[in-house]
Structures are given as C-alpha cells and as structure tokens.
C-alpha cells in the first residue's frame, strides 16, 4: 500500500487520480501518449443504450478559466462499447475501469448497467444523472432527490458492482440529492458535473453553441465543486469522488481535505494531455511540503 493509495468502494487504487468522463475517450488515445496504468483508474465517455452522435456543432466554447461543452453524450452505444472499446482498452489498461453511464429514462439506465455488469474490466459504474429526463419534463434526474433515488435503486437492482452516482451541481440542495442516492443504495457519490452556462457571439448575435446552453467546467468551477464536496462528504458515509476544475496536485489535496476519497480530472486533460500523469508524479513532493505521509489520512481532514 503506497503513500498515494486509497480505497474506493472496496477496490484499492494506486492513487486517487482519475480522468473524468468525456475528457479521456475510452482511454486509448491517451495510451498513445503515456502508460495509462499509472492512473488510479479512469472514467470512460458517457455510455448510453443506443449510439448517439450528440448535439450539433459548434459544441465547444471558451470561458474565463474554463470551457463550455454541449457534446451531448456522443458514444457508440453500450453494445459496441462492450464489443469494440473494452477489448481494445484491454491491451493498454490492465486495471479495473470506471464505466460512466447515462440514460433518458430509469429503464435505460438499468439496461445499460445490466449489460456492463457482466464485463470483468468494469470496476465501478458511475451513473451520470445530469442528463435531461425525457419522461420527467426535461429537468435532469439529478435535480430531484426522489428521481435520483429511483435511478439509484433501478441500477443497484441489476448490478453487483459498486455504483457511484454522479451529481449535477445545478441544484438548490446538493446534500438532499446525495442523501437520497445513499439511502437508495449508492456505494459512492461523485460530483460535480458541469454548471449550466451560455455564451453569445457578439458578431452573429447567437449562442456560441448550436445547443444554446452547455456545461461549464475547468478551474472556474473549482471553488463551487469544493464547497459541494465538503457539504456532501459531511452528510453521507459512502466515499465521495471530488471533481470540477482540478488541475494540480495541490487541487487534488484540497479536494481530499474537503472530503474526497478520489479525485477526477476533466477539462484539464484536454488542454494539457499529460496532466494526470504529471499530477501523480508531483503528488509525493507536494505531500512532503504539506506534511502529508499518506493521502488516505487526509480524506475529509479539513476543519471549518
């Protein structure tokens, strides 16, 4: 057990650093750049029941200290993920991976998870409940504790793997959503997904995004993410994965002090492709600087 290791829902991670869903593909683009086995694990592109092209383009915009995306869950669908992506990944990644799952109805979530449950490469299911709920008026599953619980229960019923519910920050009371997921059986909580945002192009007088709005991520959201991790980690007893704007070893430690057992890194991968590797390499020295022997000792270690 190294200085960096943490235990995420019963599975030991060599370190808490996890590339976030949607910013690391299915892993092998980055495997061309560095040995991705240095990672704790990684969360794959959000996978849905059917293949999706996603939203129209443009679906990326620049923001102060961040970016907005409206990719809209482009993915080949769970069957091709299992048939093509996972086998391809096997040759470059020998650790359990985190399967990120999305859906537009409770049944869809369950169907995708049931299929992924059979895959030995999948270590955790990360269930993204910020997608719009087509049967529930378009608001996301993640904005209503009762619906969040319903998704959690449906997924838990079809899988023996640890289920991590990934929450949307676009809510009044993040603790209520987290607790509802925990009570419904979630094995962990990850947060935050993106903050709903928009930019208008002054020349065209239209949204920069074809989808009108999109999700803000990157350093800009870090203080909001940290606050939510802090609130949720104190309210639930399952592990919390912290993410949102993390881009340095110091940020990883700050998230862990706030209560995160592991830390995901999203947008930063897009701009600095080696950042996860570099953060893992930098952690021991930064830990020394702040008198930290083992990362697992500091989880939730901050005082108000």
């Amino acid at each position: 057990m190294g200085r960096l290791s943490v235990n995420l829902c019963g599975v030991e991670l060599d370190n808490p650093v996890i590339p976030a869903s949607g910013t690391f593909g299915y892993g092998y683009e980055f495997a061309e750049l560095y040995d991705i086995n240095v990672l704790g694990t990684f969360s794959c592109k959000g996978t849905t029941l059917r293949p999706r092209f996603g939203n129209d383009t443009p679906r990326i915009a620049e923001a102060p200290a961040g970016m907005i995306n409206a990719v809209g869950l482009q993915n080949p669908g769970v069957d091709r993920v299992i048939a093509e992506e996972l086998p391809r990944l096997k040759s470059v990644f020998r650790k359990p991976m985190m399967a990120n799952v999305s859906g537009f109805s409770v049944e869809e979530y369950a169907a995708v998870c049931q299929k992924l449950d059979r895959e030995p490469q999948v270590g955790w299911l990360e269930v993204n409940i910020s997608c719009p709920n087509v049967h529930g008026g378009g608001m996301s599953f993640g904005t209503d504790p009762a619906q969040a619980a319903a998704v959690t229960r449906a997924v838990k019923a079809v899988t023996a793997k640890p289920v991590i519910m990934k929450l949307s920050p676009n809510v009044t009371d993040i603790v209520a959503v987290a607790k509802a997921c925990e009570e419904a059986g979630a094995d962990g909580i990850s947060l935050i997904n993106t903050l709903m945002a928009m930019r208008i192009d002054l020349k065209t007088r239209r949204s920069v995004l074809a989808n009108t709005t999109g999700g803000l991520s990157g350093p800009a959201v870090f203080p909001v993410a940290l606050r939510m991790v802090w609130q949720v980690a104190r309210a639930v007893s399952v592990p919390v994965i912290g993410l949102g704007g993390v881009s340095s070893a110091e940020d990883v430690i700050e998230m862990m002090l706030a209560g995160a057992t592991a830390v995901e890194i999203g947008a930063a991968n897009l701009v600095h492709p080696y950042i996860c590797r570099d953060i893992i390499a930098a952690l021991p020295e930064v830990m020394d600087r702040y008198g930290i022997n083992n990362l697992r000792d500091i989880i939730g270690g901050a005082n108000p």
Partner: protein
Amino acid sequence: MKQCLFTVLENTPLTEAVMRLRLQGDTSAVIRPGQFVNIKLEGRFLRRPISVCDVEGDVLTLIYKVVGGGTEQLRTMTPGMRLDLLTGLGNGYDLSPAGDHPLVIGGGVGVPPMYWLTKELLASGRKVTAVLGFNTANEVFYDDMFRALGAEVILTTADGSRGVKGFVTDAMAGLGYSYFYACGPEPMLKAVWRTARGSGQLSFEKRMGCGFGACMGCSCRTITGSKRICREGPVLTKEEIRWDD
C-alpha cells in the same frame, strides 16, 4: 502527437490582419501537409488550432488571421518568446491519389496549408495549379511564394481588385486537373465540392476542445459515420462528405 515548447523566430504581418509566425522547436511529429498544431496562450483556457503552412528542419511556419482575443494575443508575441504547442495533429492530406497534375484550392486563411502541400506535390514530380481566393487585393498573401515554388497560380478576388473577379470556383471552371485539394471557409468548400469534377480532399474547421481526439467536441457526420475533425480529419475525401444543411 507531441507537446513541445517552441521559440518565436518571427511574427510579422503579411496583410492588415494576417500574420506569419515562424517557430523553432521539435517538429518531429509534423509529418504531413494539412496537419495542424494547437497553441496554448497565457490566460486563455482552450488552445488555438492553426494549420502548418510549412516545416523546414526544426522551423515551423504558421499563418494566422487575427479574428478574436486569442489571435490578437498571438500577434503580440515577439522573437525569443516561447509557446507551448501540441504538434502533429490531424490526418493531413493523402498525396497518393494526386495524379500528375493536381489542383490545389485555397481561400483566405485556407491558403497557408496548401503551401506545404504544393511543395510536396511538386517535390514528387507533379505539376501543380494553385487557385488562391481572397476578398480583395490588399488581403492577398503568399501568391508569389506559390509561384516561387514552381506552381501555376491563379488568383481570384471577390471584388475583382486583383486576378480573376469572383470565387475560386469561377477560376476552376474549364481547368484540367487530375485531382483536387481544398481548404477554406465552409461556403467555399461547399461550392468546390458541388462544382469540382473528379475526386479530391477537403479540409474542415470546427471549434475544438482538445485537438487530439479526447473530447468529441469536433465531430462531424460523414457518409461512413461520425468523424472527429481533429483526428480522422481535418481532411475528408469528397466522397465521404455529408452536408446536413
């Protein structure tokens, strides 16, 4: 793909809004005309993609137009300053189907990537005709550079202030060529795609999150399925392109 620091050698105006940037660094990942680099600028989150105009040893030439905050900031770079680049991005042009007399078509800041392509096509013993389109005479750049390479150059300006009056497609009518390569604004590409005889390759632009295939920000639909402009593109063949609107 490689991530490397480059040193600015030159950053000079070619026209009022178009600049030539010459950078020194590790160019080993830059292997094909039509590829691009992605430039990190202090204080901007996303990198800025710019096509490779030329590469000679460890010197990279980029040509960019100042259109917004990032390119405005790039304009202020002076020799000796350093830039963090991702290099060797995108598929680039495939030269093998070019035949003996390919046509290269560039519009505005779509002209620069055609320069290195033309150089390579000529180096392989082919004859090249280059149709270069601009809005107006004082926006023209690099036509002399293409001529110096040994290409036949046909210049067009939308207002007729230099060369043929009209669009690149006006100049193309009646030309004989074995294959074509095009880069330019989307309306130009669409016109070329619609009117060009025979086969060819066209290079596209999309807003990009990463530039190396990680984010799915730059996807486009083709007749063979979705492609990432930054990885399976920016060059698509005429045959696979699908125009949705």
